[in-house]
């Protein structure tokens, strides 16, 4: 009888130890002091519906159904100081998302930034992040997504789009065109114009020329 008693003791002990190993993979684990971990003030990307400390069940459900990342109130304009460039960048884009708006933008919408090396260099950094995966390193439409066959037929800046006016580019970045979606949520107006400054360089085959600078 005695050896079986030892066996039983070991079994009970190992059950308890193993039991502590069962964890919920969706729980980050133990916290020292939860009331110092959770913000009372509403923070972005915190699901308050998950937190039993501060809310009732009804408000938890309401919170869960609401997106924490919100848009600015419609019609508000960010105050950008007295600088005329900053002011014009803060103004809303006047052309509607229609074929007519696209044509009008091509004729009437011009960059408040100068076509110079600094803006083109700033645009190049943004271009490498935001555009290369489709439009390609040099704007030839041969990005990795195109190479992998997911989106094909992307026109080249230096060939098919060599004469595309800045306003149409801005319109396409703001609203999207064809398969390209709107990038307005990812790029503010200044960043859009900086990228256009760099695309103007690509349109000229990668050389900064006077001709590209004179187009507007």
């Amino acid at each position: 009888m005695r050896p079986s008693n030892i066996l039983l003791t070991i079994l009970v002990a190992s059950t308890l130890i193993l039991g502590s190993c069962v964890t919920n993979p969706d729980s980050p684990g133990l916290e020292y002091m939860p009331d110092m971990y959770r913000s009372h003030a509403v923070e972005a990307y915190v699901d308050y519906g998950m937190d039993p400390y501060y809310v009732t069940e009804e408000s938890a459900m309401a919170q869960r159904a609401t997106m924490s990342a919100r848009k600015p109130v419609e019609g508000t304009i960010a105050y950008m100081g007295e600088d005329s460039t900053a002011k014009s960048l803060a103004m809303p884009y006047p052309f509607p998302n229609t074929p007519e708006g696209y044509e009008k933008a091509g004729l009437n919408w011009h960059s408040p930034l100068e076509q110079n090396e600094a803006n083109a260099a700033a645009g190049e950094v943004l271009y490498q992040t935001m555009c290369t995966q489709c439009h390609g390193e040099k704007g030839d439409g041969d990005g990795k997504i195109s190479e992998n066959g997911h989106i094909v037929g992307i026109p080249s800046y230096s060939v098919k789009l060599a004469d595309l006016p800045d306003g149409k580019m801005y319109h396409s970045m703001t609203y999207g065109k064809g398969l390209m979606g709107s990038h307005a949520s990812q790029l503010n107006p200044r960043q859009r114009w900086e990228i256009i400054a760099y695309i103007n360089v690509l349109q000229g085959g990668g050389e900064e020329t006077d001709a590209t600078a004179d187009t507007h």
Partner: protein
Amino acid sequence: MFRLERARKFKAVTQAAKSLILLAILSTGTPAFAGVWDSGDLVKGQALFNANCASCHKVTDEILAAPGLAGISDRWASSEEMMVLWIQDPQAAAETGDPYISSLIDRYVGTYGWMTGQAVSTEDVADIMAYVQNPPLDPSAAGSASGSDCPTIDYSAGQNASQGTLWFLILLTLFLIVALSAASVKRVLKNAVAGSDDETVELDGTYVQRIQLWAWDNRVFVGILSVFIGAYLVVIGYQGLMGIGVYEGYSPSQPIKFIHSVHVCENEIDCQYCHHSADESKHAGIPSTNVCMNCHKAVKTGARYGETEIAKIYDAIGFDAISGTYFDGEGNNGYASPQDSFGGEPVAWNKVHNLPDHVFFSHQQHVEVGGLHCQNCHGDVGKFSVGRIAPVQEINALVDDFPGLIQLSKPTLTMGWCIECHNKAEISFASSGYYEDMHDRLRDDLRGNEELRAFMEDGKATVKELGGWECAKCHY
């Protein structure tokens, strides 16, 4: 299989249509553009189609950013000249007042916009039509990343591990209960038999009594064993306590089986394309569904899970994959861009990188001013599936790929890890105007105290030397 069969059927139909048209052209005897449907070169046509048409049109009846071209010869057969003009200069074609072109404009231009006029000759159009009517049965171009060194991630593996352990424990407990009850029944019966027979047999005691008896008989062994067990429990307890607040390897489940390696490694999408607020906000940002749609308007079928996972994006944003357009709040279809009024339920991702509320951390400061790579803290996410906290050893191993990556020893996302990096990280004064100003003050300001100047004696300044170890830098 289905797709293949449909393509075959489609081919047969177009062949029939072609011969019909040929017959019509021959019988009417006006072969001005007789070549458009029939004289083209398929190989040249494929190249021309991919260069000029493929960004909006598909050769099937699927709508991409414009209607699919399947059956085009049926629709345009009556006026080939018009079609060539429509391709070369849509506005000029519209001015002719052709009834079919007017119907096209009414139906499609409002939603998809004007087609861009293409610089193609009539011969080119003939080549393109040859390709459109005889598309290859297997569009092999569609994203196969074979031969790349990107990991293939399969979610189905290792998902039931924790459930298996649970069942094991339940069975073990049941077994123990049965074994113990059986043993005690046996003991009671034995004692009863012994008592009734009036034999001088030592009665079995309870479990506790018997364990005490046994332990006293083997006290040396029990003593040594308990020392070991005690030491073991101390070590386990210490490790358990040290594990509180350490979240290395934490990777909660997510509502969509998102695969970072497909996006980052196979398709080379920059981290900051989706997490685009990393350089201007405290948060790197979880991309909203409209950012997903920038690619997934075209990519409707995933390589791993087909349409099910991508359809979750469509449900959230109100996209109709068949017509390629968006819904509004009233259920009307036909918008070219996402509608705010749709109000779909947002995708509720589970947060992976949790910092306690008493720590302030800003991505902007580290990405924009500090100029850190994302990989410095997040590891090689291009090899991950969903978000995961990379263990520090994994990050250290990346030093060959990312020169200047700082190797650390404390677990990722702990305070020890933060201040270790603040102690080691050198500041590059050339990287931004912010530090240049700081540098000038250290070097030139005569009022600057000797302590500050002393930092510069070894020719470098660390984050710590500029206040990176001040409590109030992160805790306030």
